């Protein structure tokens, strides 16, 4: 009779198995893992980093994780993002948002929590800042963080987003640590199908952005 299935007793379970395929499992405890990396883009003196595919109704939530985003421009700039309703032909969806941060200078001269009216948006099509004073002046400075976009394919509701970032920021005479909290909504019932990240001037010198789908 043809061999069709290998039973556990037929396998040397004490040996080492170096799997190189994909191990798609059902959790031994309960449920299944439902956060999947969909794409990774890496900057190399890039004007923008864009995600123009795979943002649809496959997942309820899309998470963007940006890692060590470093600008090329030699002045204080805020890393930002915008959405598109036409798969990236244009980025400028009307949005309203709030922005606050906690900061602390390296020389301990100042530390506070504050609302930043300079970085929130009110029914604006501008790019939404996600950081404070990201600077190229110090080669080791960058911004890292996460952005969650909820149900972007909905044609019923506005599209909420929530972001938390951490930046080594340029404060002129002294640098500071900045922890920013941003949230708001794209005020549209059209589906958001593309997201773009950029600095308002200059390039993204280096850094990586990963996009995950979450169900």
């Amino acid at each position: 009779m043809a061999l069709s299935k290998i039973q556990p007793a037929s396998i040397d379970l004490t040996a080492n198995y170096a799997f190189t395929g994909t191990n798609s499992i059902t959790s031994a405890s309960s449920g299944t893992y439902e956060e999947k990396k969909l794409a990774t883009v890496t900057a190399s003196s890039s004007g923008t980093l864009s995600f123009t595919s795979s943002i649809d109704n496959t997942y309820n939530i899309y998470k963007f994780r940006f890692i060590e985003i470093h600008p090329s421009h030699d002045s204080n700039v805020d890393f930002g993002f915008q959405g598109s309703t036409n798969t990236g032909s244009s980025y400028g969806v009307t949005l309203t948002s709030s922005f606050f941060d906690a900061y602390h200078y390296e020389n301990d001269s100042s530390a506070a929590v504050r609302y930043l009216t300079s970085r929130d948006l009110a029914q604006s099509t501008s790019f939404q800042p996600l950081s404070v004073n990201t600077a190229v002046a110090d080669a080791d400075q960058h911004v890292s963080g996460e952005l969650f976009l909820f149900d972007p394919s909905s044609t019923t509701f506005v599209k909420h987003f929530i972001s938390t970032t951490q930046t080594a920021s340029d404060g002129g005479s002294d640098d500071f640590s900045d922890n920013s909290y941003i949230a708001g909504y794209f005020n549209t019932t059209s589906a958001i199908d593309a997201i773009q990240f950029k600095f308002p001037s200059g390039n993204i010198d280096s850094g990586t952005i990963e996009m995950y789908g979450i169900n």
Partner: protein
Amino acid sequence: MALSKLAANSFDLTDNYAFTGTTTGAVSTQKLFLIKNIDASSSGTVDFVNGASSVVLDNTYKTYLFRIINVHPSTNTGGFAVNFSIDTGSNYNVTKTTTSFVAQHAEANNVAELAYGSGYDLAQSTSDQEITQNIYATDDNSGCGNLYLFNPSSTTFIKHFISETGSMFANARAWHNFVAGYCNTTSAIDAVRFKFDTGNIDSGRIALYGIK
């Protein structure tokens, strides 16, 4: 011919293989497990009760995450709220002490602030804890966010929770609400309820995850 390769479909993948050797290569490092999605449809409440309808809310996981996706009320409402149970959902009235603060910005740009929500916190109260406020029944209004519940099965410690939500407040403002606190009990929390202060949850999804 000698058998040299076994294809994946040669294994009974539904059986249990208790490897005691070392598995290297594509080892899963995934730590977040979806336990249950509940979709509201004119629902008075959305309840996650340990042991009911495939819900796990016990010592299987140290941390539980509730993801809230576009909850929408049937009527203009005061807030979307959470409460906890120690008797598998017979009562949702655990004593809580909490903080609440919000960053808000109006579409008209006439309100922009970070403020403590003294009207939205609780001090040793069994009331529902609002995790966002004033979502209107207007068609495109909704609320989204996350709520973490830490080690609910502990019978030694109180139970901490942390929530961050984003919503449209009264059809006119971006509302970013942070709520944290603790259930002041050493009894195990075994059920969690979400509801609007008034009316039903017209639509929306709440997903429960376990985090290892």
